[in-house]
């Protein structure tokens, strides 16, 4: 009975699949058979090593199974082949123990050399701290004030296709686009210190040949030095299962020239107008926009961006001085939505209406619904609901505490460092007056400010 049921169901499913394949309107980018084009020396070494081992394996495979298939072809009963009776040969057995061992030694030598090079994080020009969160990445440029979070910017409407009638076309960089890029210079040794805030993640940019686990309580190291002339966008994804949205926390690294990087860092993480023009191809991605013009795979980005750098840039004096004065900068590049822990606006003095807070709060609440669900219902036993919860309908003070400082030992992150006062106030207001809650409470940025002290 059970088997019959499975048959019918499976036939139905495969029928659906075949129909879907024929009628498929899914955007398809060019596929690859091998590693992404390496842009660092280490990545090239790894690629070379990978191909060396691959071809050795292919040769072994062909030789061994050449013998086997010859035997299958020739030594068969249907050809009246008489079976021999031999059952051992010490010479042959020693040979096929020793020869593979020698092949292994041949493989191990270059592997060891590359590994030693990979693990040498000394003499770096720049250090960045990378922190994995459920489900975003945090970046801090040590020795400067620049730090920010980087979250997936692919719109939810593209991802959720449960209702086929509402499906929208997928963008070219579906699941490989973020709101803020990690910006690094080419031609310099960048060291990354990698850790995590909640569970284990792994930071990976295939074209750099860098992958390292981000483990809470640990600080791991990796380094990369992107070739000069390979400026552009490089994309990677989290590589260690980190819970529900593991597939939705990509990494985008924007490689710029050393000069551009220095100016960017000096300006507190902003490009000036000229640099924006220079790297414009790369900036398209920072807007949440499905009709992106950057419809290229990684290698192409690198080339086009490199060509786009105008020679005029070279004339600009390099500003190595770290300036915290934002007012002189023409702020064109960065998304206003970007979160910054350095936000020092005097939000406490402004006046806010509940409607303003609710509107703002709805935008910020995308961070909440990642776990607590679009309807605020959570996942029972794993992520608590917002709807009707004791927190969101109980004392305001506790609610603010939880949102700002998190709950230790759970997935609930501390948002005090990730959101500014206005964002925190509005999202808490939003939580208390939506998701089916209707407390009528209003939390003001000044309330948050008071808590910060």
């Amino acid at each position: 009975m059970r088997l019959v049921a499975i048959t019918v169901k499976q036939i139905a499913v495969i029928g659906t699949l075949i129909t879907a394949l024929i009628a498929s309107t899914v955007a398809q980018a060019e596929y690859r058979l091998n590693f992404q084009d390496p842009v660092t020396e280490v990545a090239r070494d790894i690629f070379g090593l990978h191909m060396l081992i691959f071809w050795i394996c292919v040769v072994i495979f062909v030789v061994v199974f050449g013998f086997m298939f010859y035997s299958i072809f020739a030594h068969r009963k249907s050809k009246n082949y008489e079976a021999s009776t031999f059952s051992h040969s010490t010479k042959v057995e020693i040979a096929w123990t020793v020869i593979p061992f020698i092949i292994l030694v041949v493989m191990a030598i270059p592997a060891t050399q590359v590994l030693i090079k990979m693990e040498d994080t000394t003499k770096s020009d720049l250090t960045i701290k990378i922190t994995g969160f459920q489900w975003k990445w945090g970046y801090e440029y040590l020795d400067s004030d620049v730090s920010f979070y980087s979250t997936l910017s692919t719109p939810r409407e593209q991802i959720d296709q449960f209702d086929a009638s509402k499906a929208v076309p997928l963008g070219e960089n579906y699941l490989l686009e973020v709101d803020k890029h990690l910006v690094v210079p080419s031609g310099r040794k960048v060291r990354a210190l990698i850790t995590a805030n909640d569970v284990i993640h792994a930071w990976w940019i295939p074209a750099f040949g860098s992958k390292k686990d981000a483990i809470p309580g640990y600080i791991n190291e990796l380094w990369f030095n992107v070739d000069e002339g390979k400026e552009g966008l490089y994309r990677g994804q989290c590589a260690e299962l980190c819970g529900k949205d593991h597939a939705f926390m990509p990494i985008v690294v924007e490689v710029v020239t050393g000069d551009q990087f220095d100016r960017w860092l000096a300006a507190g993480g902003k490009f000036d107008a000229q640099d924006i023009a220079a790297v414009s191809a790369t900036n398209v991605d920072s807007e949440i926009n499905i009709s992106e013009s950057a419809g290229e795979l990684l290698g192409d980005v690198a080339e086009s961006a490199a060509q786009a750098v105008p020679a005029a840039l070279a004339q600009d004096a390099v500003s190595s001085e770290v300036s915290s004065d934002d007012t002189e900068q023409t702020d064109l590049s960065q998304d206003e939505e970007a979160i910054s822990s350095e936000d020092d606006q005097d939000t406490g003095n402004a006046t806010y209406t509940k409607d303003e807070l609710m509107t703002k709060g709805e935008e910020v609440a995308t961070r909440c619904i990642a776990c607590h669900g679009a309807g605020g219902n959570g996942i029972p036993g794993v992520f608590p609901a917002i709807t009707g919860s004791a927190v969101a309908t109980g004392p305001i003070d506790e609610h603010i505490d939880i949102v700002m400082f998190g709950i230790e030992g759970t997935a609930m992150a501390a948002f005090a460092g990730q959101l500014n006062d206005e964002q925190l106030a509005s999202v808490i207001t939003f939580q208390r007056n939506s998701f089916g809650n209707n407390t009528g409470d209003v939390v003001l940025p000044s309330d948050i400010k008071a808590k910060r002290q």
Partner: protein
Amino acid sequence: MSDAAAHDDHDHDHHMPSGFQRWFMSTNHKDIGTLYLIFSLTMLFIGGAMALVIRLELFQPGLQFIDPHFFNQMTTMHALIMVFGAVMPGFVGFANWMIPLMVGAPDMALPRMNNWSFWILPFAFSILLLSFFVPGGAPAAGWTLYAPLTIQGGMSVDMGIVAIHMMGISSIMGAINVIVTVLNMRAPGMTLMKMPMFVWTWLITAFLLIAVMPVFAGAVTMLLTDRHFGTAFFNPAGGGDPVLYQHIFWFFGHPEVYIMILPAFGIISHIIPTFSRKPLFGYSSMVFATGAIAFLSFIVWAHHMFTVGMPLQGELFFMYATMLISVPTGVKVFNWVTTMWRGSMTFETPMLYAIGVVFLFTLGGLSGLMLAITPADFQYHDTYFVVAHFHYVLFSGAVMAMMGGTFFWLPKWTGHMYNETLGKWHFWLTAIFFNVTFFPQHFLGLAGMPRRYADYPIQFTEFNQWSSIGAFGLGISQLLFVYIIVSTVRGGKKATAEVWDNPEGLEWTVPSPAPFHTFDEPPVIK
């Protein structure tokens, strides 16, 4: 030996109970073996159905059918059920049926414990499967149950831990039974170095099981106390060490993969000589190679976790040790190929499976060698390249070896010949759809698709579609396997005692079907 057979023949249904008493209270190694095999096949279908849910969702980018949390439950449960429910009990089933017949013993040494070790399993897996219905659903942190992600999970994680403890107890008891039987109940004259290869591989597997199942039990117990009793073995919030969990887990986990493949090597070592009409080449080197693999399996665990940030020296040690495993594994492959060499081969279904296993397992072994190369592993790690690799060794290694073993011994078990045409169809469908499913995953992994992803960037679409189509083909083909088994049990051409053309081994000296009691009088081996 024919005396023993004749003797068995006339009293074979003297003490044969029926119904509830026969199946639930059985102490007969053949009946318990049958129960294990049925259980394993059932789990293969349950775990397989979960794989199809995964492949359905991955047919195209975007989320069409299931949300990512349920997707993670599917990948976790698929693996737990296949590893602990399908593959391990499957091999215990073969061990129960064949070890006493191969060593000329009347039964397993500890028959009541044998009954218990089987009957724990349905309860263990009921608990595991019921976890789908608790708040938050089934465990979703991957079969490796890495902390601290498991510390976040709902009560299903606790149910999973209880289930793991139960199946661990079952495995350890099964292993003790195999060791005691093999060491004490061999027929007079059967020295250790005259034992059939399947018995050898299982003896070594049993020692591996006893060595590592308690380690796994310890790891999950520490997880349990971290979750509920405020300890902080692995919880970084209390100063615990998430990497420690991985070391302990893989100290169990690597021998575990050999637990799942060594008995398969044993089965292959019986099938190939039979259909090559030539003795197994290099018997003693086979035994030593198996022992060497078992030893090395204890010192390579950290190759599963090169990216956690180990010291350079550690990475080099685990790289070299891992590469070394390919030497004894290579010896085995060369021995099988040389056994075929200048034989007089025929290609009945079991032989097709054996050749398929040697070919495809070696492919998986070579991708394993690539994975051993640490710098390259940094790129392969946690991608579909790894998924492809371990399905080549686990499905086309372990599972296909069990399928081959089933066709090989089914006439002995049932007394009927299976339908050869259907058997060959099953082999070709399985082998082809398996490759359609998993070969493209190598490309996906190299191009950069991480594993355990509910959704993926669009450049991975085509190969995922191939993979999904292959998976459904592979799943449906297994219904043919069930049909062949059921129809062979019900009837078919009568099998002779030897079944095949002059096969070697005591199991072929008893009639087909093997009577309820065999070898009441031990045979004498010259």
